[in-house]
């Protein structure tokens, strides 16, 4: 910061002041409790470039930029087995105050599919920071221009809808939506989000479930039409697209982007992280991250986050069990 120059703007000054006050508040309590006193190990249970990886890197940047975490932070991608490897490692750090990890849909679905030693309820919840939601979209060749027309058509003639994987939020969200909207459909699972998009463009599918970041380029180019959104509020790029909740057909599930500590983490660390994350979610850098990745902003802390995870898990398990996809 160049104080010798006179050009510090009012806005810059305001940010500076806010940072100083909030920063003091946070570090003030932290110093009293001698936390953090050691380097931080962030476990990312997926390869670089994924949703968990980007969130962890943004978070680490903010924690260092605002001097919130005064010790070094290392980000470690421990990928493999749909998260089993990374969260398996994290589970073994029980009691540690200096390990954190991020959540995604897989932290709920992977234990439903394989014998993992850990379960989501083993970890110590800190905060839900955002949700990754989905768009129901059709090709621009489709006869349907609105969700109402789509539902009406679907009731008469069950559509073929593509998504990513089966034991995944894509399928669960559209299944819950269809149940509330009163139509049946054939679901075609793909290995990745781009795969289902290719299939839609080739005319093989009637509709797909996909992430807004993946779809919005196609929507802007007039190749696809977004009909409905699973999240609580539609991202700016998809303005005018109704949320499923506004239609009274809220699927109520999402991919939770949250922060967790290992099992039996010290209470002092949990309190520090909850307090710190309350500050982080209000920073402009975090807001920028939410906007550019088209996430839905929603924050829940501690027990509220825990309850959210339990509800999500119940909805996942019920839907998958009803479809015969898990035991």
């Amino acid at each position: 910061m160049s104080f010798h120059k006179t050009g510090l703007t009012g806005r810059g000054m305001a940010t500076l002041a806010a940072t100083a006050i909030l920063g003091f508040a946070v570090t003030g309590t932290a110093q009293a409790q001698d936390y953090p006193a050691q380097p931080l190990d962030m476990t990312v249970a997926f390869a670089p470039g994924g949703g968990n990886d980007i969130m962890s890197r943004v978070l680490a940047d903010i924690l260092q930029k605002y001097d919130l975490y005064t010790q070094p932070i290392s980000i470690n991608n421990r990928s493999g087995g749909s998260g089993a490897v990374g969260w398996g490692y994290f589970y073994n750090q029980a009691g540690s105050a200096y390990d954190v990890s991020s959540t995604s849909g897989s932290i709920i679905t992977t234990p439903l599919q394989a014998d993992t030693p850990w379960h989501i309820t083993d970890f110590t919840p800190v905060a839900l920071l955002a949700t990754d939601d989905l768009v129901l979209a059709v090709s621009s060749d489709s006869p349907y221009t609105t969700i109402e027309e789509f539902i009406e058509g679907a009731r008469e003639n069950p559509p073929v809808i593509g998504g990513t994987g089966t034991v995944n939020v894509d399928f669960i969200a559209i299944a819950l939506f269809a149940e509330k909207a009163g139509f049946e459909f054939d679901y075609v699972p793909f290995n990745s989000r781009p795969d289902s998009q290719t299939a839609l463009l080739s005319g093989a599918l009637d509709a797909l479930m996909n992430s807004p970041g993946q779809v919005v380029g196609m929507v802007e180019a007039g190749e696809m039409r977004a009909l409905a959104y699973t999240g609580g509020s539609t991202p700016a790029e998809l303005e005018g697209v109704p949320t499923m909740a506004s239609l009274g057909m809220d699927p109520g599930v999402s991919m939770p982007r949250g922060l967790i500590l290992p099992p039996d983490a010290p209470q002092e660390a949990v309190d520090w992280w909850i307090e710190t994350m309350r500050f982080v979610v209000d920073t402009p850098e975090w807001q920028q991250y939410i906007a550019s990745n088209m996430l839905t902003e929603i924050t829940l802390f501690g027990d509220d986050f825990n309850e959210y995870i339990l509800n999500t898990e119940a909805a996942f398990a019920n839907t998958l069990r009803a479809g015969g996809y898990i035991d």
Partner: protein
Amino acid sequence: MDIFSDLLMGMSVALSPVNILYLVVGALVGMTVGVIPGFGPAAGIALLLPVTFGMDPISAVVMLSAIYYGAMYGGTITAILLNTPGDSGTVASTFDGYPLAQKGRAGPALVMQAVASFTGGTVGVILITLLAPLFSQVTRSFGPPEYFLLAMMGILTLVVMIGGNWRLGLISALIGFALGTVGVDLETGRSRYTFGSAELIGGINFIPVAIGLFGLGELFYAFYRGIHKVDSSDMITYDRKNNFWPKAQDFIETRFTLVRGSLLGFVIGVIPGAGAAIASLVAYSVEKSLSRNPERFGKGEMAGLVAPEAANNGASSGAMIPLLTLGLPGSASTAILLAAFLMWGLRPGPLLMTQNPEFAWGLIASMYFGNMALLTISIFAIPVFVMILKIPYRVLAPVVLVICTLGTFSVNSSHIEIYIMLAAGVVGFMMRLYGFSPAAVVLALVLGPLAEESLRQTLTISRGSFGIFLDRQASVWIIVITIVLVVVLPMIQLIGRRAREGKSTT
């Protein structure tokens, strides 16, 4: 001309000193990761991706893309020298590359593969420059039915290629298909043959199997023959003075192969999901069908190395088209590039090239220079790599074993994959001993799941009717091309040979 002003603008971006630096760094890293078995383009990009966080997107994409196509140059070096393909796209290069090295022609083989890679890469970039929008239409017509037919095309050309010992080849392919069934069944979400292991729910990865079957299999076989007891490796001979540069004959014989391989590779590369493995296989089988001496393939024929090499580099360029024009990646490596686009705040999709022309054209222009840089690096590096052959085998073998293990572990940091690699090594040794085909195993492992998943997707979409394959224009085209490839071409060749034999006897 619009294209040329775009390209010139791209050149000015790509030629800034900073971007040239990143380009050369990317090319070097790409070559190096390509040489280490298992540590292919996807792993190389993933390794350097965190470094690009907060970097200028153009510099970042120039570097990561150079790693991507640079790895295609490096990957063949071990395929030729150690019979160990580092990636599914270089399996077909072992067919004639390794026999060439065994015949004492390692130098010419390495130089020709660099030339073929350069040709494939450069032809690919020229086609991207001129025809990207046209080829994006090809991408757009491919859905599950087409992927199934394409996988069948790959499997059928594989069967044609196995040729001679078809029983053993067929058993090998079946082993590959069986391994491909492990993991979560995409359609039902149920685990198959995972025995509760979380590490196996993603299926058996290609890399540990390929490294085990080829690399370790070859290693064990060499011990079996007692190579380690001899002072200097006589497995491969090499004469620096007289036998480094290719002969004029090598170029003349393969000039059309270069062009055909590059074009074929590019077109197949444009289709997301098909990629370098199918491209190099199809190119190899086309060359074998067109050759006057098909019996020399598999025994060290230069055309048999040049074709798949031109094709896999053509395919890696071709794969850039769906990524840039539609935001759809066609392979594991381009999928990481796409994730990187999102991370840098770009919005992939049909408007990327118009909304971010400096980015798109800077990348395209950098690929011209990247291929030139890689050709130069290769020519200088080849004498160094060939020195490997001077190392006594008893010293080289443990190093190869360690590198193979590290390469396998680096992909997913998985212990189970190391055991898979070791088991595949023992199996590979047996296969070598009894004349089975390791190539058929690994290619079936790649193509089997693609065929299974796309067929089941197709039948869900058509609600059980096979008529869908005849309803879709693109499907019909693939069926016609497959028939030409596996029936018509071999028949013409057979008739031609009969006619020639008839003449010579009379």
